[in-house]
């Protein structure tokens, strides 16, 4: 059951967006998020919708798949909208007991709901079109300047990619340990919260031990394959900007400038 949780599900097709350098996609996502916060009207959001729509179309990720990805955050979205509906002061248009909806509330609820929706759609476009490995690579390169002031950028990136490799393995292991303890009569489902937390001990201890065992093995295997940190390391496919990446950056710059100018009128 734990295996069914997926985060940032990469959608494997070949498209222009998929082929872009991950650094461009990270920068692009940031630009897009900034643009969402620069606008405070529906007309402004419409501009962002056009921008995102065009990219989604280019990415060849089916719309249905995109929308399905929204399911886990639906609750958060509805909460945001409802809180705004009920808790914004202003001209009351509907009232029931302590609950009242104001005109301003309706507007704000709809606006923040849309903004949040666009925010999530935009960032999931990045994870749909970029593998976790590419993302890590891109982040490592983008943050490289930080290593000059002593931030261990390479090490953090290595940790991230190892985590990506072992998350599915540890999830599967959790599943197995749970079943094994259930076979010994363990009960994870009944009782109050304290009892349930206590029932987790027979899962967490073996899991922790296994994680340490794996970490030890992996460290040995990495050393045996001459790993000695980022120094002097090369890459099989180093990230290189191609013409399309430069063009994409220009496009982003144009979009950001346009947003800043349009902001006055929209």
């Amino acid at each position: 059951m734990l295996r069914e949780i997926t985060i940032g599900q990469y959608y494997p097709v070949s498209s222009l967006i998929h082929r872009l350098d991950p650094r461009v996609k990270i920068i692009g996502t940031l630009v897009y998020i900034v643009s969402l916060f620069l606008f405070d009207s529906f007309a402004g959001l419409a501009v962002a919708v056009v921008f995102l729509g065009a990219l989604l179309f280019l990415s060849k990720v089916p719309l249905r798949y995109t929308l399905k990805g929204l399911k886990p955050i639906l609750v958060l979205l509805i909460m945001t909208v409802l809180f705004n509906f009920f808790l914004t002061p202003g001209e009351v248009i509907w009232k029931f007991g302590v609950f009242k909806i104001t005109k301003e509330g309706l507007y704000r609820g709809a606006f923040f709901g849309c903004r949040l929706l666009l925010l999530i759609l935009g960032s999931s476009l990045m994870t749909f079109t970029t593998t976790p490995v590419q993302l890590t690579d891109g982040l490592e390169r983008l943050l490289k300047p930080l290593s000059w002031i002593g931030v261990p950028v390479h090490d953090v990136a290595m940790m991230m990619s190892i985590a990506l490799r072992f998350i599915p393995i540890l999830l599967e292991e959790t599943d197995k340990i749970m079943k094994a303890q259930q076979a010994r009569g363990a009960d994870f489902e009944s009782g109050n919260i304290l009892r349930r937390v206590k029932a987790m001990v027979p899962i967490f201890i073996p899991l922790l031990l296994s994680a340490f065992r794996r970490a030890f093995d992996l460290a040995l295997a990495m050393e045996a394959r001459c790993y000695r940190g980022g120094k002097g390391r090369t890459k099989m496919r180093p990230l290189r900007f191609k013409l399309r990446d430069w063009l994409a950056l220009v496009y982003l710059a144009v979009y950001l400038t346009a947003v800043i100018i349009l902001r006055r009128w929209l």
Partner: protein
Amino acid sequence: MGIITTDNLVFEYIRRDENGDRIGEKRAIDGVSLDVEKGQFIAVLGHNGSGKSTMAKHLNALLTPTGGTVLVCGMNTADDDSLWDIRKSAGMVFQNPDNQIIATVVEDDVAFGPENLGVPAEEIERRVTESLKAVGMEDHRADSPNHLSGGQKQRVAVAGIMAMKPECIIMDEPTAMLDPNGRKEVLETVHRLNREEGITVILITHYMSEVTDADRVIVMDHGKVAMQGTPREIFKRLDELQELGLDAPQATILAAELRRRGIPLPEGILSVTEILEAYRALPEQYQVSDPYKNIPEHIEESFTELKKDEAPLLELEHVSYTYSPKTAYEKKAIKDVSLQIRQGEFVCLIGHTGSGKSTLIQMLNGLEKPTDGRVLFRGEDINERKYDRRALRSKVGLVFQYPEHQLFESTILKDVCFGPKNQGLSEEEQRKRAEGALRLVGISEDIWNDSPLEISGGQKRRVAIAGVLAMHPEVLILDEPTAGLDPQGRDEILSEISRIHREAGITVVLVSHSMEDVAKYANWVHVMDGGKLLYAGKPAIVFSHMEKLKKVGLGVPQVTEIMRGLFPQEKRPAMDFITIEDAVRALCPADGR
């Protein structure tokens, strides 16, 4: 001078007490001198704790000697400056396939070594392609390692070493966690690399069948070299090998048994082909007439009649199981299986990885629910809403693979009490049951209050099995209880299970990959293939389907192969010879009289 030489190598672990003070040392390697020549295939044998893995770690400078020297391609491993050159020249493959793959994509993992060495990008790309081709994994280049089988993962690990352009590959029990097909895959790959690319191979293993093709075999015991020579020279000394806690292929043992009875077979027979040739070359007076002629033609019914009127203890009725139904990952694990397990039997379940046997045993105690069909325990449907499945789990005890990984309590005794505690028994009763179970698996009383994490691998496994036995199950299901153990450990666990079956009268369901073990212990066998039940019956009858079993990649005991090789049959016999005793009796008729 050879490519790897050790001169009087000594390694001591320093043992410390809780405060970190030195309380003594343990000599793991005690004066080992080796000389490995370029292009050789060396096999190192030894039971767990014989020092073979510690020695392997010295050969690529993961450990440095306490005394003596290790030279790899002329470089001293104690010299820090040549550390990376040594590791590049002598690559190492480890036991656990999952814990040595670093990247989330196969090709990225193969590139990891050359990347660390600072090889230019185009060159890495070329090496990755070549290495993946050399191990036959080029089609899986862009796959995630999580979707590969154990054998495929180990081949990726080998490719990762090959991409560093090594002189030598050291393999530390690379097949211990694999199924027979995975083992074959990996061995064929390294033999090919040795033959075609001239790579020196040092293979550490405790499977005797893996060393028969080596140029030289080194047997280790207590940190010393106990025997050394060609496989034939080693296998001639069968008794010594068995004393060192190692086994030998059935062909070797059978030949030795026949020699003991005066049949003049040569010493040091290694394989089925060799024993067949040697036997055929015997003078006429030693040849016997076809023993298959003595087997009645219709034997099957008389066996299946066994206990027919008695109600089965566990029963599957047209059971199917589908993983993630109605999604892209939908997978039919079990397809319309019906089978019965009768009280008091020792049932074996065989089938290769992915045949559905793990899912099947989890349905027997209600951990998995069939998508279709019914599972009955003593005639009651265990998936009925009102059925008490938690209580069922103490009656149908399930021991998973590598059960020692689920130990978690501070003492052995407490850990074994976990099951009885969950059954809601009184503390006194819990303790009584735990003690009984520990005695049953042969864990001595003086370590009951030790941590279950600080005992040997074989002992841990026994403690874990005791944890299930303490619930007093009527059925004990074990999923490959011998996986990863050395030959002696395997024998001990199996004979203990067999004793528990006999003495405590517990019905046993054993999942196994070893046809020899199945032949020795089972009185009923279920064969799974591709989610379906292929055969069910007495082992001697099931193994008579030799051709079909081989076709689905399962095989039969080596003895059966030898007997069929000696006496080819036109049609399938009603039953077959499946143990060494069977074969000896058939081949030495005089002996019985």
